């Protein structure tokens, strides 16, 4: 029973679009300076002046949310690029050529993948120190195995298909076969994996910021806002709720979009 409209895709695009729009605008303009303290206004409830209220130091939550989301999205995007780029190369080469290098790399991959990423990220960060760059580095490296695994299994699947053998007979070289013949067939799986990785990165970054091991102040970060808000939960719940909802919407939007895309390609 197929619906006429791809509801997942549509709602996904709407939600994600809204979040992305908010972030882009936030880059150039926010209602208030996210870091501006205004002690007299501390912990005011959401209203016309401050759409999402203010936090315990009188900062406008909406502005901070706009800035914080930007940080989160940026980190997630970079993670996906780093992991995707290296993961593709590793996965494609090991899958195509096989051999003992493939076995070793896959073994390492499996080990990394059997650990929950947050754990490894924490350890990385404890070694390298916190800060945006290190987080991107850690999460990016941790994303490589999942990407490599997917790309590798697709390459292996394609390797034995007749059209690839045919290409070999007709004289195409290895690199040409991998990148010109095989890649276009893998794009969909890669995008799906990228979407999953994107979401995991958002969750990881938010969790790490919550734990205090993420981006450092005074940069706004959704996770840390929620962490700071806990003490004021009873009096000023909006302090915690809005950043949380934004995180949920971001992840949800992306999930819906990637599911919608998958349905389209079937």
């Amino acid at each position, binding site marked *: *029973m*197929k619906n*006429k409209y791809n509801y997942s895709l549509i709602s996904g695009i709407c939600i994600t679009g809204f979040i992305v729009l908010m972030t882009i605008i936030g880059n150039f303009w926010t209602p208030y300076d996210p870091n501006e303290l205004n002690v007299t206004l501390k912990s005011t409830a959401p209203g016309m002046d401050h759409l999402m209220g203010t936090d315990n130091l009188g900062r406008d939550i909406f502005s901070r949310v706009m800035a914080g989301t930007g940080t989160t999205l940026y980190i997630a995007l970079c993670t996906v690029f780093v992991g995707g780029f290296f993961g593709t190369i590793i996965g494609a080469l090991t899958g195509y050529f*096989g051999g*003992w290098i493939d*076995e*070793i790399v896959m*073994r390492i991959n499996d080990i990394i993948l059997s650990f929950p990423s947050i754990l490894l990220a924490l350890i990385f960060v404890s070694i390298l120190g916190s800060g945006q760059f290190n987080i991107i580095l850690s999460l990016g490296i941790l994303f490589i195995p999942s990407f490599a695994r997917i790309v590798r299994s697709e390459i292996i699947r394609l390797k034995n*298909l*007749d*059209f690839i*053998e*045919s*290409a*070999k*007979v*007709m*004289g*195409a070289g290895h690199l040409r076969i991998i990148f010109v*013949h095989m890649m*276009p*067939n893998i*794009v969909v799986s890669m995008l799906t994996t990228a979407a999953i990785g994107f979401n995991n990165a958002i969750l990881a970054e938010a969790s790490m910021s919550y734990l205090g091991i993420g981006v450092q102040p005074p940069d706004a970060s959704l996770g840390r806002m929620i962490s700071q808000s806990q003490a004021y939960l009873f009096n000023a719940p909006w302090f915690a709720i809005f950043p949380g909802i934004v995180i949920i919407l971001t992840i949800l939007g992306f999930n819906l979009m990637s599911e919608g895309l998958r349905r389209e390609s079937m």
Partner: protein
Amino acid sequence: MEKELLEVKNLTVSFFDHQAPEKVLDQVSFVVNHGEIVGIVGESGSGKSMTSLSIMGLLSSHASISSGEILWEGTDLLSLKPEELRKLKGNEMSMIFQEPMTSLNPVIKIGSQVGEVLKIHTTMPGEMIKSKVLEALREVGLRDVNTLYDQYPHQLSGGMRQRVMIAMAMLNETKLLIADEPTTALDVTVQSQILDLLKKVHQQRQTSILFISHDLNVIKEICQKVIVMYEGKIVEAGEVMQVFNSPKHAYTRRLMTSLPKVTKEIITKTPILYIKDLNIFYTESNGRIGSKRHKKHIVKDLSLEVYEGEILGIVGESGSGKSTLAKTVVGLHSDYSGEIKIIKEKPSMVFQDPYSSLNPAKKVGWILEEPLKNGGIKDKSERRRLVEEMLSKVGLEFSLRNRYPRELSGGQRQRISIGCALINHNRFIIADEAVSALDVTIQSQILNLLVRLHSEYELTMMFISHDLNIVRSLCHRVIVMYEGEIVEELDGKPKHAYTQMLFDSMLH
């Protein structure tokens, strides 16, 4: 007792996807009497499988019966409640399918699966069920039934699994056995064994069989009456010999068309490929570090010469090594010892499966241009011209160059594969089961194309197939392979025992 067991009356079934409903069966009507073997023959899209699924109530949720009746001993099955219909399934009417591997549950033991029909339909105690199952397994010619009882499907061969399916289908008092392409996925020699088994079942139990196949020879072998279907409709029906010998409908006539024959004269005997003492190995790796790698000896001490301008047929079943031989000659496989001397040019290849031989992500035009690009032709318009030329040579319109493979039929795709093999002015082609995956009428089209191209461009061809009929009529010389060795070069009557067995299984 009424003579009629099953009467299908004006059955119309439509298929619903997201687009408009499509009729897959249109006013289908026929009768199966008690103790009769009726065949339904047709190609893909004819509706023959749909008919059998409708009778058994196994249609998917996408398909629905718009009108008609299915009378079982007088009662309309379509008017029955699901519970009532279920009492018949696996009991008085049962079905066996084409792929015995996937048709059996991989995680349940054989004995348990087979016995399930008794469990569902009778109140027999477990011990009695087990003994009945063992007996049935013996009846269908299986040995070591006690061990078999506790085994899993993947531990059995294809032929054994199909026997298990038959045992399972006949365990109760089955009046009608529907067999949907039961031998298509099996080797030729196993095929005839299964057909013999079905004949035995029919004789002993007087069970009616509705036998569905695309293979005319099989239908001729086992059926008394035959129904010919085309695009959801019955185009002809009657006694088998009558329909086969004097077909009335144009389509039936097309089905019965004889295969193309080649004039058997070759002028020169210039070798274009010289193989001596070839041994080909295949290493299976287990995927684990340090595990033992099995080295299989696929082709043993093979010597062969291919002469310019001939069509050389290589016939054998799966496991004979014919495909591995082809792949090695063409350069796809390098683990071999012995001599392969290519005298004029390297051969190009046409593969079996039209659905995987073209890159699904690329347009037809791009696919045809690839060999040209690799051959060094840098001028785009020159390539375009060659592609246009080739498309017409293989009988396709130029507009197809902008389509994706998934938009084309199996026959069209094979034409493109042939085009790719010839576009660089190659004169030596290896066709590895190039028509085996196609419908019968399309098969003869493609074979005719190959014959035409062969004479027009003075090609040399190695034609590999398991189908002895095609090979004998198409090829100048025929070589028979069995378990990696050349068993005989066919010259009139078969001399070797294996070739004789192939002949006997060929059924005509």
